[in-house]
């Protein structure tokens, strides 16, 4: 027997404004939107007049759950925010906790985190561009990009043991050091990347179909983008060189030579091109970091957060108790609050932590770029054709895990 379920959302508008208008519902599960998002649109023919964006279908109580686990135990959870670049979430979160505890990471860890952040950014942008090109029918470009991304995933799996959810960051360090030959393979992958990204430029940049679908579609001005809270590639595509890696350098970014690519129009094409250029900058940075990478330990020697070595745990009582306390009670953070943000591939990823001292957070809040971007999505959709929703939504790169938390 069919029963009518209550509608989980209340649309902002249920009446048409005039006779020609029709209201359609798109999503939350729609083959053309990669992400669980619901868009209620008032159409005039093919033109979108108004939209009402609903998210929250993937809400899983992340912030509530965080309040009952130790600081260490949250690392696997933050992997699942933006699951295209789990390492950046790891490092941003660890950075926030380290700031709270007053821990300074070792030089090798700092450079490795920077290298892996850029590597993750590369994987994330590859995914975003591949998916949005495929939705426009560019299957070859999709396969080229996803092939490179798969090299990256396999390569990160060799380091971390997982393809997507890495859980590689640790408070005060990293899970393990690089395996033998990892940097050599990294260089091979970067060379392969350069070969194929040239083909993507050749296939897409001056492609009439691609330009017609993306040029002057989903345009936003710098002032509007700032007003609606856009950060990351979307803000930079409007011409504003706003990048935390440059403006408030964290990790090792202050020592690196790189440009902040910006667009001109703030349309879909610019967002595609900004991401393409950012990947090149990431590769350039990774190459510098390979040269700069110092030797030394990857974990700080600080008993408040770093686990003692295993052979000591088995042989001396102090280390055993230390291990026990770190696992059962968690790393002891002092009372206080901190907001730390990293430049994630989608924009500013911030962690706001409140601690009342002890091993678990009193409150943890994530400033996720995707959620804020969904608040301004209607600015990119209204006034354009219904079919333009696909490239526009693709270029925004909404990640459900991060948006809905």
């Amino acid at each position, binding site marked *: 027997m069919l029963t009518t*379920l*209550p*509608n*989980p*959302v*209340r649309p*902002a508008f249920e009446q048409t404004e005039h006779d020609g208008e029709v209201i359609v519902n798109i999503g939350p599960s729609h083959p053309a939107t990669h992400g669980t998002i619901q868009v209620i649109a008032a159409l005039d023919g093919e033109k979108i007049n108004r939209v009402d964006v*609903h*998210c*929250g279908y993937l*809400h899983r*109580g992340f*912030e*509530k*759950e965080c*309040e*009952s686990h130790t600081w260490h135990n949250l690392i696997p959870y933050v992997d699942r925010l933006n699951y295209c670049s789990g390492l950046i979430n790891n490092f941003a979160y660890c950075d926030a906790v380290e*700031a*709270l505890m007053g821990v300074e990471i070792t030089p090798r860890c700092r450079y490795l985190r920077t290298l892996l952040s850029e590597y993750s950014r590369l994987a994330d942008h590859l995914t975003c561009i591949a998916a949005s090109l495929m939705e426009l029918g560019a299957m070859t470009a999709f396969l080229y990009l996803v092939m490179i991304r798969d090299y990256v995933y396999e390569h990160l799996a060799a380091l971390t043991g997982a393809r997507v959810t890495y859980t590689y960051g640790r408070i005060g360090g990293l899970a393990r050091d690089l395996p033998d030959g990892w940097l050599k393979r990294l260089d091979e992958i970067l060379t392969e990347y350069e070969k194929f990204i040239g083909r993507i430029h050749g296939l897409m940049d001056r492609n009439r179909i691609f330009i017609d679908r993306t040029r002057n579609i989903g345009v936003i001005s710098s002032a*509007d983008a*700032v*007003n*609606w*809270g856009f*950060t990351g590639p979307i803000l930079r595509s409007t011409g*504003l060189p*706003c990048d935390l890696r440059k*403006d*408030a350098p964290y990790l090792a970014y202050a020592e690196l030579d790189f440009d902040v690519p910006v667009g001109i129009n703030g349309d879909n094409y610019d967002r595609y091109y900004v991401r393409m250029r950012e990947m090149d900058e990431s590769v350039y940075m990774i190459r510098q970091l390979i040269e700069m990478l110092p030797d030394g330990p990857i974990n700080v020697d600080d008993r408040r957060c770093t686990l003692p070595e295993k052979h000591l745990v088995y042989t001396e009582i102090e280390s055993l108790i230390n291990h026990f306390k770190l696992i059962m009670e968690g790393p002891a953070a002092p009372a*206080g*609050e*901190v*907001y*730390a*943000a990293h430049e994630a591939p989608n924009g*500013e990823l*911030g962690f*706001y932590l*409140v601690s009342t001292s002890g091993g678990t957070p*009193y*409150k943890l*809040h994530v*400033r996720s770029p995707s*959620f*804020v971007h*969904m*608040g*301004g999505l209607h*600015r990119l959709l209204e006034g354009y054709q219904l079919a333009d929703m696909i490239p526009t939504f693709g270029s925004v790169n909404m990640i459900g895990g991060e948006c*809905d*938390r």
Partner: protein
Amino acid sequence: MSAQVFDVVQQQLAPVTGECSLSHGTLVIAFPPPALLDIVRRLKNEFKFDLLLDVTAVDWPEQAPRFEVVYHFYSTTHRVRVRLKTRVLATDPTVDSLVPLFGSANFMERECHDMYGIDFRGNPDLRPILLYEGFVGHPLRKDYPKQQEQPLVPFRT
């Protein structure tokens, strides 16, 4: 650079705000709720804090004004952050909405309303955003049990 901006902001806002402090490179300004709109408007227009990053709240059930509403702002000119904090009572958890000043405030205030039940006076659209229509309670309040379930669809047996 950031120290200069913070000094100016502190001096200028001193008559309306209470304590100001510096925490991990962020200027923290605490003040009573009625001053919010005035301070935010001045931050935006005079000191160029043009990007509203985040709106959230902290629940302190044992303290007198129970909820602390927390805002983060970023200046794309000065490249520094400011945190605003204001305390509201559990019986009347109301602050002014920032929607007239920042478009991005809408979604973030809706989330904060969902999770903590803060009422943003002047926000025309406080429909649930991460939760669903008809959800009872505010899950990030400390008195909301983590295991509580409110299924929309009955469980299959």
